[in-house]
């Protein structure tokens, strides 16, 4: 028993030592809002993401702290099609199923992307826009399958859905950080994963993850749910509204004419 004690003690010390090494610097995060409500007049939203780095030890002197913040919408498979000229007109010739592409993806960093994160770490944590899209199942018989994944990035970047915003995270005294992420008006519903990565010397030292809930509310919610759950009722309702509007307009102008 007495002989066992030091062994136990060493184990315990090792365990706590490991824990402190892992969690030397931790993220304490705040969001200006943890849910985005899509209402009838929804016109995009700006989310303020801020936080502090909690640490028990003094600030390491070697490399400055950098912060990467990513906000990622729900992922879904995407069908990408390519056009080619056939018989003088442009037609879709081949397609690739990109297994998983987020509907929205924004990366904000505290410095130029290459200087805050190494390529290996990017590969591991899937931070850059290209890495956030997965297309394992791309058929090899189609030439340039990569082109298709690139096309998804290009098209969604043009729509403002994907963006890389280097040097937009402000870091004070290696402790406080903040950024604002703009979300466009053409958002889809779902849980938007928000990640905060702390890096030193291009290596990730700590990671934190939370979710922002994006939901249609009120009338938008009601109509969307109705169209999916009771499509027949929804269809009839659309028709009734159309017929009433048509009849109403006719009756209104009839009244005007009679005067």
């Amino acid at each position, binding site marked *: 028993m007495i002989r066992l004690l030091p062994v136990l003690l060493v184990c315990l010390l090792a365990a706590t030592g490991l824990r402190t090494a892992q969690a030397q610097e931790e993220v304490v995060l705040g969001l200006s809002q943890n849910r985005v409500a*899509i*209402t*009838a*007049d*929804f*016109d995009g939203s700006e989310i303020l993401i801020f936080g502090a780095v909690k640490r028990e030890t003094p600030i390491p002197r070697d490399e400055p702290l950098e912060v990467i913040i990513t906000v990622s919408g729900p992922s*879904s*498979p*995407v*069908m*990408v*099609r*390519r*056009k*080619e*000229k056939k018989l*003088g*007109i*442009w*037609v*879709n010739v081949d*397609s690739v*199923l990109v297994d998983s592409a987020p509907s929205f993806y924004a990366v904000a960093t505290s410095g130029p992307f290459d200087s805050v994160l190494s390529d290996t770490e990017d590969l591991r944590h899937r931070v850059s826009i290209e890495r956030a899209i997965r297309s394992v199942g791309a058929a090899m018989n189609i030439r340039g399958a990569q*082109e*298709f994944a690139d*096309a*998804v990035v*290009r*098209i*969604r970047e043009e729509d403002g859905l994907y963006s890389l915003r280097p040097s937009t995270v402000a870091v004070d005294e290696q402790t406080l950080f903040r950024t604002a992420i703009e979300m466009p*008006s*053409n*958002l*889809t519903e779902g849980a938007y994963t928000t990640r905060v990565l702390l890096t030193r010397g291009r290596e990730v030292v700590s990671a934190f993850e939370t979710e922002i809930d994006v939901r*249609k509310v009120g*009338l*938008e*919610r009601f*109509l*969307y749910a109705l*169209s*999916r759950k009771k*499509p*027949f009722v*929804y*269809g*009839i309702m*659309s*028709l009734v*509204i*159309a*017929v009433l*509007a*048509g*009849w*109403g*307009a*006719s*009756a209104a*102008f009839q009244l005007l004419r009679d005067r």
Partner: protein
Amino acid sequence: MQIYLPIAEVSVNAFLLFGIGGMVGILSGMFGVGGGFLMTPLLFFIGIPPAVAVATGANQIVASSVSGVLAHLRRRSVDIKMGMVLQGGGLVGASIGVAIFNYLKSLGQVDLFVTLCYVIFLGIVGGLMFIESVNALRKSKRGVVPKRKQRGWVHSLPFKVRFRTSGLYISVIPPIAVGVLVGILTAVMGVGGGFIMVPAMIYILGMPTKVVVGTSLFQIITVTAFTTMLHATTNYTVDIVLAVFLLVGGVFGAQIGTRIGTYLKAEQLRILLALLVLSVCGKLGLDLLLTPDELFSIAAAGESR
């Protein structure tokens, strides 16, 4: 004022929708067509997904047709019997059309097919109408009374039926065939089919012009209502909010258009409509021929059922 459309999942300017609805309404009031052939391409242009534009277009046409038919019923210029026959064909056609639409969607060729349909039909209808109305205008200037051919191949077919309001005694086959064709177009292109129905009634069936517009609108109601239901229950693509904004603009536009229409001669109206149809056709045709800016297009994988 931005409005978020719950089904299309995009946010668009409400006034833009009123404007599009109003503009199309003016044209439809002037020419007695539903205006779907203009509405659907315009909706594509402002970024509404094609599937939603097609389905919602059908719903919007229900409203404008109801409004139009009520006016025509008061003037007794609706051949209800003929409308019923056309509708029978139309419902069959709409079912076929939705099946074709879903099949092409799975192939990824739906955009191409819809555009080709537009180019071909608008080209043919616009071209014929233009030639015919220019000739008619020239004749009326020379003082010759235009006389429509009353007997053709249409009159030699069996199953003859009397259509009292139209003053016709013809086979039911051509009206059913026209109905089926228009039904298919409605489902695939999201149009009421007025631009093809009206010339078909005048030139193929030989119906008097005064009952053509009312009867065409009458049968369009049923076919577009049916198409709306099919799209709503199979594709979930009818956006009711979008439809409301378009039809509010549309009903006002239609009334203004009717006023403008009364100041113009029938031949002049037909030439203008022909030119409009041909220019939409030209624009869509050029898009097929010119190199697109973006060779790739993306769609949700779930859509390719």
